[in-house]
């Protein structure tokens, strides 16, 4: 499908939708054309190119082959030889994104609950703070944590100076840290590691978690939990039996959205994850912009990432519309 085809299709729709209203019809036409060209065509290009073929030592050509997908799931040499390297990368994408989004939501939930009980003007100040940190670029945040976790300044240095390292050695926990890769023989070492990756990723989406949970939590009816309290329920019983069930759906919806957002994170992984735990997003980059120059295979990986994300978003949407309906 070419761009010109899309334009023709787009121009036909409003003519039927709004007969007589020519000005509105023209507006609809222009907007539809814009949306189709800029919001749909890029995705179609990715999908189409994912069926293309890479020529060794040269660029790629248009084609219709499933080779790239085969390579992703079972490797090029299938059925003689099977490799799950790319599936494993997708697995790490999921692994990091699931843990980081859960961590962010679970810590953001009590925070947001407390936030909605503050005065409106105080809430606004907190929101400015949270929005500012939310808008901080991934590169700044990675830079910040990189300094914080680096060996010659930041936390490891702090551990050493305050004697924490020695204390850890004395009580024998240092060996445990070494076993899970968070220490070298002399001191604690936080990066590269899963710990640093997950910490930074969940830091990255934490403000989003607050912003997404905020509407649902600020609409909670306090009289319900007050009623439960007067009937003698303890605070924790109220949270467990009244508050949590009524926000279950937005909670799951938020987790899904953050998860989808994190599926594609690139900078954090490329700086903090160990080379054997790189994700699909990093592989997409190295195929399209990096050294491999295999755009069709990169596109196939992007399509698979997109499909995974769409499935999650669809379930999220389902949950949200259920929540709206109640």
């Amino acid at each position, binding site marked *: 499908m070419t761009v010109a085809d899309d334009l023709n299709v787009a121009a036909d729709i409003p003519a039927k939708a709004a007969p007589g209203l020519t000005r509105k019809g023209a507006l609809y036409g222009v907007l539809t054309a814009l949306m189709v060209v800029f919001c749909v065509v890029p995705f179609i290009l990715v999908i189409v190119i994912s069926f293309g073929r890479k020529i060794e030592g040269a660029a790629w050509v248009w084609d219709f082959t499933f080779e790239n997908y085969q390579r992703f799931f079972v490797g090029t040499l299938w059925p003689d030889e099977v490799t799950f390297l790319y599936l494993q990368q997708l697995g790490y994408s999921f692994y990091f994104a699931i843990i980081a989004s859960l961590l962010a939501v679970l810590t953001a939930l009590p925070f947001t609950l407390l936030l909605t009980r503050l005065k*409106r003007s105080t809430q606004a100040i907190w929101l400015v703070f949270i*929005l500012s940190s939310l808008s901080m670029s991934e590169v700044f945040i990675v830079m910040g944590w990189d300094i914080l976790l680096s060996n010659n300044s930041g936390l490891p240095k702090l551990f050493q100076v305050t004697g924490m390292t020695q204390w850890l050695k004395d009580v024998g926990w240092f060996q445990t840290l070494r076993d899970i890769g968070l220490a070298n023989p002399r001191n604690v070492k936080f990066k590269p590691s899963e710990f640093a990756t997950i910490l930074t990723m969940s830091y990255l989406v934490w403000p989003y978690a607050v912003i997404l949970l905020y509407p649902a939590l600020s609409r909670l009816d306090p009289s319900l939990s007050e009623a439960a309290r007067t009937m003698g329920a303890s605070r924790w019983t109220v949270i467990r039996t009244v508050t949590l069930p009524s926000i279950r759906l937005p909670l799951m919806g938020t987790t899904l959205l953050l998860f*989808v957002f994190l599926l*594609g994170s690139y900078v954090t992984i490329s700086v903090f994850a160990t080379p054997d735990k790189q994700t699909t997003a990093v592989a997409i980059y190295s195929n399209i912009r990096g050294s491999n120059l295999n755009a069709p295979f990169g596109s196939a990986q992007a399509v698979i990432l997109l499909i995974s994300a769409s499935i999650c978003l669809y379930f999220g949407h389902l949950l949200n519309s259920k929540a709206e309906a109640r």
Partner: protein
Amino acid sequence: MRIGGHIFMALAAVVLAMPIVVVCGAALNGGRSMFFPPRDPTLARFGEFFVSEPVWTNALANSIIVAFGAATLAVLIAWPVAYLLWSSGSKLSKALAGLGSLPFAVPPIVIGVGLGFFWAFTGGLGHVWSGVISHAILLMALPLVTISIGLQSIDRSHLDAAATMGATEQIAFRTVVLPQTIPYTISGFFFVLVLSFNEFIVIFFVSASSYATVTLQIFNSLRNGYTPTMAVAAITFLVVSILVFAAVARWGDLPRLMGADQSKN
């Protein structure tokens, strides 16, 4: 419990601020490498970032062009879509709004790759104007949402009153709809502005290394080791964000924009 709550919120604020404080502190380093706490503190890095080092001044200029261009364009596209959605509620207008939000909803790397291909075929790859359009596409979901919230807050009886007194749709639009939605339009503009400033992955793919914005320049420098000048960029962006959101909170209704219940105050 109350005290526990306060402590928890304070702790969250500290963790949230920690990397930002460290980056800001590192900007004061006198030497060429990053230390925290800063050694030999100086403000010379600010001069390098804003005045003397062309790498950074060019990057800053590109960032500003892309952000303001994208914010203007995104609002200009989002306005008619939000208006059609509100005034007609037709299936087509819903589809348009859905399509407009699509780039923001998928993992950014996918739309980055897609726009990269798109500009490669249309000849825009590596031009600043294509970066402007790409960011407008990516972020138009934000003004779409804020303007829709603004339009929904208009009391329909005002429109009826205007119509009874003989106002045409255009006049009602100019005297009732537009004034009431301006704060929300401006909020949408600022949200795009700030997020465009800080966006990395899409501009990474569409710039094709032929120009750099500040975030791109920082990423490039991340690989060659840190310089304190990078931290000045972080401070600048943070200050811009805080000013923008404080302005939105001051002149708009931030809790309502974020979806808080209106009845509680």
